[in-house]
């Protein structure tokens, strides 16, 4: 069986899969027990499964695990914890930017990647960056406020 080494949240993880085309998402969720990234569509359309691959947001539901081999994978668990949340997670909590919360890990990862590139991102930049992340509950306004808060701006 193919074996790969992934650098997940700073740790080297060796994983063995029966199918090298198995999407990264299932390896993270099942083999590594990192269930923060969610299955939403399996088509790269909704963003619930977003993780960072070498710092870039990717849809882990359509990234074969082979493509993540020997690369850095950051999941929402790697950003922060309940006790020590990442500044963007702090902002999400402050804005109560979650209803059901299923899409939220993907929102956090997309937002975190934006803020690395543009620490002072504008509201429009946040809207554009998150355009591929879907939310059904309608938490959008709070999510935008959270990103703006983490960017040191007041959302309008």
């Amino acid at each position, binding site marked *: 069986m193919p074996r790969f080494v992934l650098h997940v949240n700073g740790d080297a993880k060796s994983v063995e*899969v*029966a*199918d090298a085309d198995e*999407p990264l998402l*299932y390896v993270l*969720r*099942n083999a590594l027990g*990192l*269930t*923060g*990234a*969610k*299955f*939403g*569509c*399996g*088509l790269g*359309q*909704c963003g*619930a499964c977003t993780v960072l691959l070498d710092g870039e947001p990717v849809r882990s539901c359509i990234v074969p695990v082979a493509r993540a081999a020997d690369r850095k994978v950051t999941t*929402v*668990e790697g*950003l922060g*914890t*309940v*006790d020590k*949340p990442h500044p963007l*997670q702090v902002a*999400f*909590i402050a804005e*109560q*930017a*979650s*209803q*059901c*919360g*299923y*899409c*939220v*890990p993907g929102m*956090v990862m997309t937002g975190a990647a934006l803020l690395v590139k543009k620490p002072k991102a504008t509201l429009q930049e*946040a*809207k*554009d960056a*998150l*355009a*591929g*992340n*879907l*939310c*059904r*509950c*309608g*938490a*959008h*306004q*709070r*999510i*935008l406020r959270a990103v703006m808060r983490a960017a040191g701006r007041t959302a*309008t």
Partner: protein
Amino acid sequence: MNARPSRREFLQATGALVVSLSFAGDGAAQRLPASDAALGKTLDLNDVDGFIAVGADGRVTIFCGKVDLGQGLRIAIPQMAAEELGIGVDRIVMLEGDTALTPDQGPTAGSSGIMRGGVQIRQAAATAREALVRLAAGRAGRPASEFIAIDGEIRPKSGGQGIRFGELVGDKRFGLKVDPKAPLRSPDTYTVVGKPLPRPDVPAKVTGRHVFIHDFKVDRMLHGRVLRPTSVGAKLVDVDESSIKDIKGARLVRVNDFVGVLADDEWAAISAAKKLKLSWSDERALVGRDGVRVWMRAGPFESDEFLVRQGDSRQALAGAAKRLRGEYYWPMQTHGSMGPSCAVADVRDGKATIWSASQATHRFRVTIARVLGLPNEAVRVVYLDGSGCYGMNGHDDAAADAALLSRAVGRPVRVQWMREDEHGWDPKGPPQLLALEGALGDDGRIAAWRTEMWLPKATASLPNMPLLGPEAAGIAQTPGITTGLISQNGNPPYAVANQEVLVHWIRTAPLRPSNLRAPGKIANCFAVESFTDELAAAAGRDPLEFRMQGLTDPRGIEVLRRAAALIGWQARPAWAKRGTGRGIAYIHYKNNESYVAMAMEAEVERSSGAIRVRRVACAHDCGLVINPDALRAQIEGNILQTLSRTLFEEVAFDRSRVTSVDWASYPILTFPDVPEILIDLVDRPREPPLGAGEAAATPVPAALANAVFDAAGIRLRTVPFTRQRVLAALA
């Protein structure tokens, strides 16, 4: 605040069920390996012990039959209980929707979480507090009137040492009936209710630690996928088990037309579902999307029903000088949960435990017991958070799938639907057709009104919506359809002397329907409040003033006034056609619940037909406000989700199947579409708390349609408001 129970003990000796807390934030709520369906705890709605237990450490456990679907009951109901008990909300933990532990408070639906579920628990808490005061007074040999419950203690009002709740009843039963007359605290003294306290589950949700049903695992669990047919109603013709023999551990389960695959590994199960060769009969029994409207007019009909008959609307219309007509249509829509439905089932040895995101665990317990041929007592259904659910989506279907597969192999099985399953097979919000007719009197007011509705008729006393898995497996279920209460608010909320609301009840629905947020009321308000605008324009009157003149209820007038102020309403005689416009709409939800007025500012781009919503202003009165921040979140969600439904959403289907099976073919609102949202909450501490999970959804489409009319002079009467429809109307 993120405390979730990870361990619990049933103390046989004393009989109270006490939950130990873990602050690890592991979110392992209600992870109970034992499938004991009856733990011996009372589930009686009339018993204080049904709802409340106090541990020796003074912590309080609330057993809540309503569940938190993301709407914030997990903080709001503990706030209501904390206020009455006199204890900090941080010392309360709430268990939700476990048929072995929580009383049956009915489904978490119809905006009933606070107004019925929370109110029941509040009364139990008030009864418990009175009992604690009596106990402490008894110990002190003083009258109860000299004591007060505060901060988890019963203290003498005159000062001095208090006695902690845990010392009084810790780990013991109250053994009391809920006293409907137990006095509630005065709103003047509220310290917890009315505060925007943060929800306890948010930190775990934003750090990826919250355990959703999708993340839940039990030992020896297999992953399952169910193969749905290629057309609705199709029969399985052939299945070739050898087609998946190369996938390690993959196995097939077939029960009549129910076909599933199982594997230890989730990706193996998905791969097997993709690879499995099977063929289905080709059925073409559906009317198809383009045929729905004609089909609704044609029937077959169950009955006609007059919901309102006041004065003589037909005669008044016949004799009117100025008479208007409009036909409004609302299409079938999907729940569109972000995470496809999921469940874990363990069916073995004549017992079953189902972990599900069901809105109605007690009801589902009876359903699944019947499906499995087990007595109700042998089945336990435990709620775990699902992906947002706004009515009956596929979660009960997924749970039945998991149960059938688990029973077939005698091991726990997890089933998660794929995206095409969810979009293709979740029960849909039913279609609605409304024909409205109205007349203006010489005084410029509405003199007559008729609403004629064509609606699928929900089957009376249907025990449950027929589920896909059992149907395919040939397990008998009571046939019928469920829709929610879809005929309410078809009447104008304004004074009209002659009015009539007539429903033509259609016997079936084009696709399997269910209740979807604010069932029926969104479309009905869309028609009624758009048509009110049509009448105002015909009368040459300002739409706000026209509405105000027809209202006498001060709470209705107040929300309209506030919404208008919030958006900066400018009175106008008719549409301005400046490219950007404003509209307003109002509802008294179900004619007896919350009051909502909504004003909207939207731009219509004439070249593309695109509608851009700039600002939404909502004034909202749901009586006593328990948690204003959670309430705002519900209002925001109602607004954005309904804008999505209004602008973009319609299930596409042909004669055989649903064809909009992903987010490309069924687009929803995205971040660039998000308008500015302004909310004004009317808090009425002396009024009962009403629901807020649905009401603010209902005026959205009419407010938008009315803004579009103001902006471009076109009247949109069919949802969704696609660019093509706008361009056609502009042409």
